[in-house]
Each structure stands twice: as structure tokens, then as C-alpha cells.
């Protein structure tokens, strides 16, 4: 397959983008965001889960929460580039919400291709939210690794163990749990309030997210909740990985563009030495480098998003590229955004730290830059035999 020249980003996608930008600009300006998530600055504060559920309902009414659910199952079934461009807008406002978790879960469920998965997709289409419980204590993003075990009998499965680094755990209605049984890795849909499920919130740097360990202690689910049978779950995760990587990278591009524009605006007005500081190349040129890195990552995001639909055999490589570029870009842009805001940028009351911290979280989520480069090296150069 080949990609359309325009990434398949047509009139419909533009419309969605414009709508989204307008919506979030109105609903979630920086001050609103700060009031929502920045109320408690104590570094020893308890873990919090702060988000605007009313806004989420509005988003659901607009069909935005089911965009990765195929139309056949009641979702709005949008193209990869549409979803990416929408998520970019949510990154631009650092939206706290279970959107990414739900979108990722939708992609994984679609990749399962089972009746059981389809029925969970219908639940999401019916405005349930979902999240992925797929990571182990070692922070592995490999589809084969998990600390949760499953015992599967004919009519049910029983889960035991802990899932780590579960995103937006307190915002979702159900988890897709990666668990290992003798027959291999399976995926299990578990209600967040099922008996035996305990959510242990993490205290995290990012103020716009919540993250938790989720413990499963003898959690029993019916066979109709085995969305990918043992031995198939890892395949579904692998198939969904390009979309997951692309969407997190899109979020990062949005957040970084906010950092760029905000830093540029500050550099134009902040006076030192009788000049706006943007006069000085020590500020101007690195800010240009922020732009360059954002453009590189953003182009790779749309290339990867397009590949998901139009060139699936290239999607994995394209997604590794997008996430690697986005993670490096985010680290650079975040740092510069604080530095060039000077003392002001180092205060809690200035908005830049909200985006800075979200990007710290994003950089490592689903694998950092070095990880994705190593994965891509395996694909392009071949496996590493010895330690070099």
C-alpha cells in the first residue's frame, strides 16, 4: 500500500481540528487549567486525580470519546490522522482526561478481532472509559511482559498480580489487563470496581495525569471478558502499538507547540538590557531549534498516523520514529521553555511548569527516545549479537 500525498488529511479532518481547537480554547484556558490541577503545590501532597468530568461529558456528546471505535460498533471511527490531530489539540491545552487511555484501549480492542472485544468496543461507544493495564514493575513496554497471571478455565478466568504504571486509572470504568497464563499472554476486560481490584495511586510529577498500580487479587471474570485469548493478547498489543505511539507523540507535539508559542510571546515582550530578550540570539536561535524539532516530530506523527490506515506494513517503523523524535523534542522544548521564562518560569504561578511536567511524563510513557531508536535499529540494521 502507499500513502496519500496529503496524509489523507482532508476537509473533514480540518473541520474536526478547528472545532476541537475552538472548544478547548474556550473550555480550558491556562488559568482554568491551573485552577483545576494546580491548587495544591505541596511536593508531599497526597496523590490526586483532578479532571473536569463535565467537559468529558460534553466531549462524549460530540462523539469525541469514541473516535477510535469503528462505526460498526457504534463509535465515530475516525482515521488515524483525524485522531492524531485531535489529540494534538488536547496536548496543546494539557487536557486531563481519560481520552488517551480510552483511545488506546479502542485500538487494542479493534486489533483483538474477537466478539468479546467487539462487545467491549460497544461499551466504549456507550460512553464507558477504558484504560490499559499492561506494564510490569520493570516498566517494560514489550507485549510479552507482565506481572499479572491468569488461570483460565472453560467459563472464566482468574487474575492475580499487579499492573504498574496504569494511566488515568482513577478515571476509567474498565481495564484491559495483560495477563500471562500457561498458554501465553491474554487480554482481559476487568471492571474497575470488580471485587479484588485495588487501585493504588502513584504520587507523580505530572499534575495533569493520574497513574496507579492496579492490584488484582483473585479477580474472576467471565469468559465473555477474555478479549484476546491466551497467546493472542501480545499480538493484539503489537498490532495496536503503532497507533498508541503515534497518539502519545501527537499529544507531545501539541504541548510543545504551546511551549513554543508561549516562549516566543514572552521573548517578544520581556525586556532586559533595553531589548526584548528575543533580540538575543542566545534566546532566538534555541527557540528556532524548538520549532525545528517540533516540525520534525509533527511530520513524523502524521506520517505514522497515515501509515496506520494506508501503509500498515510501515506503521511500526514510522511510529518508532515519531515517538523517538517526539521524546527528544519534548525534553529540549520543555527545558528551553522554563529557561527562557527566567525566574518567572521557575514559579508555580507561571503556567509553563504544567506543560513541562506533562512532557516529562510523556517522554517516558510507552518507551523513551533511546528505546525506540534501539527498536528501530533492530528493524533496519538487524539484531545486536554481542554487547558491542
Amino acid at each position, binding site marked *: 500500500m502507499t500513502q496519500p500525498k496529503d496524509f489523507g488529511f482532508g476537509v473533514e479532518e480540518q473541520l474536526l481540528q478547528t472545532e476541537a481547537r475552538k472548544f478547548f480554547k474556550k473550555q480550558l484556558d491556562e488559568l482554568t487549567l491551573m485552577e483545576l490541577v494546580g491548587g495544591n503545590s505541596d511536593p508531599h501532597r497526597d496523590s490526586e486525580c483532578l479532571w473536569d468530568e463535565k467537559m468529558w461529558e460534553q466531549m462524549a456528546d460530540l462523539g469525541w470519546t469514541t473516535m477510535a471505535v469503528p462505526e460498526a460498533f457504534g463509535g465515530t471511527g475516525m482515521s488515524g490522522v483525524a485522531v492524531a490531530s485531535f489529540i494534538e489539540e488536547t496536548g496543546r491545552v494539557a487536557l486531563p482526561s481519560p481520552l488517551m487511555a480510552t483511545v488506546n484501549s479502542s485500538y487494542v480492542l479493534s486489533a483483538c478481532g474477537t466478539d468479546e472485544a467487539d462487545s467491549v468496543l460497544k461499551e466504549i461507544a456507550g460512553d464507558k472509559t477504558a484504560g490499559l493495564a499492561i506494564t510490569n514493575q520493570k516498566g517494560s513496554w514489550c507485549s510479552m511482559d507482565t506481572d499479572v497471571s491468569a488461570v483460565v478455565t472453560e467459563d472464566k478466568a482468574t487474575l492475580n498480580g499487579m499492573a504498574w504504571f496504569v494511566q488515568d486509572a482513577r478515571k476509567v470504568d474498565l481495564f484491559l489487563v495483560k495477563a500471562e497464563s500457561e498458554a501465553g499472554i491474554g487480554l482481559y476486560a476487568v471492571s474497575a470496581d470488580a471485587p479484588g481490584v485495588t487501585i493504588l495511586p502513584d504520587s507523580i510529577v505530572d499534575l495533569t495525569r493520574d497513574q496507579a498500580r492496579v492490584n488484582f487479587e483473585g479477580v474472576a471474570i467471565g469468559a465473555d471478558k477474555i478479549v484476546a485469548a491466551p497467546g493472542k493478547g501480545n499480538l493484539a498489543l503489537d498490532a495496536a502499538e503503532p497507533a498508541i505511539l503515534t497518539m502519545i507523540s501527537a499529544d507531545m507535539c501539541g504541548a510543545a507547540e504551546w511551549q513554543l508559542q508561549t516562549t516566543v510571546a514572552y521573548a517578544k515582550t520581556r525586556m532586559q538590557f533595553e531589548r526584548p530578550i528575543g533580540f538575543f540570539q542566545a534566546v532566538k536561535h534555541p527557540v528556532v531549534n524548538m520549532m525545528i524539532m517540533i516540525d520534525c516530530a509533527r511530520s513524523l506523527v502524521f506520517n505514522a498516523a497515515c501509515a496506520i490506515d494506508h501503509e500498515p506494513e510501515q506503521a511500526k517503523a*514510522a511510529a518508532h520514529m515519531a515517538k523517538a523524535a517526539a521524546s527528544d523534542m519534548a525534553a529540549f522544548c520543555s527545558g528551553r521553555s522554563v529557561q527562557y521564562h527566567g525566574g518567572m518560569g521557575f514559579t508555580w504561578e507561571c503556567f509553563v511548569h504544567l506543560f513541562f511536567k506533562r512532557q516529562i511524563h510523556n517522554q517516558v510513557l510507552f518507551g523513551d527516545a533511546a528505546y525506540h531508536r534501539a527498536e528501530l535499529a533492530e528493524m533496519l540494521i538487524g539484531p545486536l549479537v554481542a554487547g558491542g
Partner: protein
Amino acid sequence: MSEKGKKESPEQIEFREYCREWLSKNTPGDPPVRLPQMAIEITTQAEMDYLVPWQKAAWEAGLCGADYPKAYGGGGRTGCQLIANEEMQRVGTPYFPNVIALGMAAPTILHHGSEELKKRFIPKILSCEEIWCQGFSEPDAGSDLASVQTFAERAGDNWVINGQKIWTSLATFSSWMIILCRTDRSVKHKGLTYFIVPIESYIGKGIEVRPLIKITGETGFNEVFLTDLEIPDKYRLDDVGNGWSVAMTTLIHERGAGPMVTPSAGGRRADDAPGNAMDLIDLARQSERNGRPAAEDPVIRDRMIELIIRQKGFRQSIRRVRVKGLVDNPMRIGLQGKLLFTEIAQEVSALALEIEGAASTLFMNDENAPNKGQWPLMYLNSYGMTIAAGTSEVLRNILGERVLGMPKTK
């Protein structure tokens, strides 16, 4: 990944077919001499003797100048030069030799020249009958182009030019030169006027061309001395004092961001251009560094992949720039082009030297040099790229000021 379009016009679709057909029968054979990496480095007549007929043939077939009006020797098509370029690059044809003329002189004359000049000059540019060079830089006017001092003094219906130009590629082969001159010393930018001057016929009579040697040892750049060179006023482009804005037309095309797509046979496929990061993988597979296979070195792998990703991102940006909704400011990507192309090429060739290990010490004439010493050559030449046609420093200023609106650093 192919990026063949979905939404090409019927003319474009048909033209692509035509190009493929023509190219399947008409690409020139292997060159009789080893060609330099870029057309601006052509230094021998043997190279020209191979390349000029190729451009002429491509012009006759409509692949060079496809979008120029028929009245000026072009194909009169719309959006077809890009197609021709893609198809020529796909099959790996040699580059066109008349690069300065195609990339700078022709679009400038098209936008600022009189009807007479357009008819007189553009056809012979496209056909390669006349080679052109460019007289912008001077020893004291490099990055600060607007400070050129070469002076054109009015003498009735003529102008008398005195001064010195530098870094003049192809000057030894050129019939004509586009030149930026000062016509008023009392103002800076508004004191400039843009001319066309005959070169070939004035050698030894007002024009002297002296080759410069690059750090690679290659020649190709020249200094051009103009002494009491008298030219008619009709060779002026646009108004007296308006030279700076004419020069901007030239520069924006040089940097690949102008409205006219430059006919470019590429010499190689896009993925095979000088400084292609993917080439590093093959190099690493063939190289031992510090006694160990380079392709097995995880640090080298990490850095190769990083460059491959950045280069891919740049190419995808060039794709993205044409998509409505995915670009807020059309200059934002375009003005990055020259900067990124040259800086990535520099990093790619620097990494190539690391991959080669001890063998990176070997130069072009050494039988054991990997890839015949092309990578050290490329690395040295990469500094020409990050300096010429707008240093990386000046380009970052331009991006910061014109795209992001930050205050001018001057």
C-alpha cells in the same frame, strides 16, 4: 515509502506516464569521467561535455522547464516540473549542469525581467545553450549581502561596473552572470540594483576569473573581477534601487522556497542524495572501528538511527507543507529546508568518519579508503554547505524573525 499522489491533476498523471516512458529509453549512459558530488563543483570541460547534452535532451523532451511558459521555451504546464524531477530522481539520472541558471537566474528573470529579456534568456537557460553564474557575495559582503560594494555607475544609456565578486561557481563556463551592484552609497538596502552581465565575451576585457581552491583541494569556486565593464541599461532587472527585492527572489528560489520549482534531475534518487543517513547503515556493515564491526556498536547504531529519523522527519515536513490544516505558516517549513539539509548532511558525514574508525584518515586517492574517500570529502564540503547561500546562523535569524516574529538581531 512511496509518496505517489492520490490527487494529481489529469495533466500531471498523464505527464508522469510520459516521463516514465521517455526516461525508460533516454537516460544517458554512465559518465566517462567521475562526476563531482554537486553540479556547482564542475571544473572540467569533459564533465560539461557529458552533462550539457543531457540537459538539452531533457529540455527537448519537456522534462526541463515543464512549468515555464511556452513563449520562453518552457513546456507551458502546471505543477509538472515536480513530477519530472521525481521521475528523473527515481531512475537516478545525472544532475543538470546549468544549476545556477535554472535555480536562480531563470525565476528571477521571469519575475523581474522585461519581456525582451525573458524571451532572450530563458530558452537558452533551459536548453543549456548558455551557462550562468551568480555575482552576489564579495569579500566583505558574505552573510551581510546588502553591504555589497561592487559599483555600477550610470553612463548615459549604459552602466559601468567596477568591483569584485567571490564564490562564483561555474564562472569559468559561464556566458552570463546575474549580479547585485551598488548604485547609491548613501543608503544600504535601497542603494542596490540588479543586472545581467555578459561574462564570456568580456574575459580579458573588463572581466577576469580566478579559480579559488577549497579546503578539499577541489576548485569550482572563483573570484570574478570587474573593471570598467560597460553594459546597456536594458540588462537591468527591475528598477534602480530595487535590487534587494530582486535578490530576495533569487535567494528564496536558491533556498528551495520560491514559487517556481527548479528543474532538478537530482543526480540520484532522493534517498540516495549526498548526506543520506540511510547510507550509513551500509557503511557500518562494511566497517570495522577500533577492531570491532561498526554495525554491532550500540552507540553508533543509536546515532545512525537518530539521524535517519531526523532526515525522515525533514522529508515528511516537505510533504506536510502542502497540506492545509497541518501548516499554520507556509514559510515555517520552507525556510528550514536549506538549514536542515546542510546541517544533517554535516552530521551524517561526521558520523560516517566515526563509523570508518581509523580508515577515516584515508583520503580520495587511497586505495583502501572506504567508498573511495567520499565521506571525508563530504564532511569537508559540508562546511561549504553550512556557510554558502546563507550561513546556518543567518538562516536561524531569518526563521526567528520572519516566522516567529522575534525582534531583529542587528
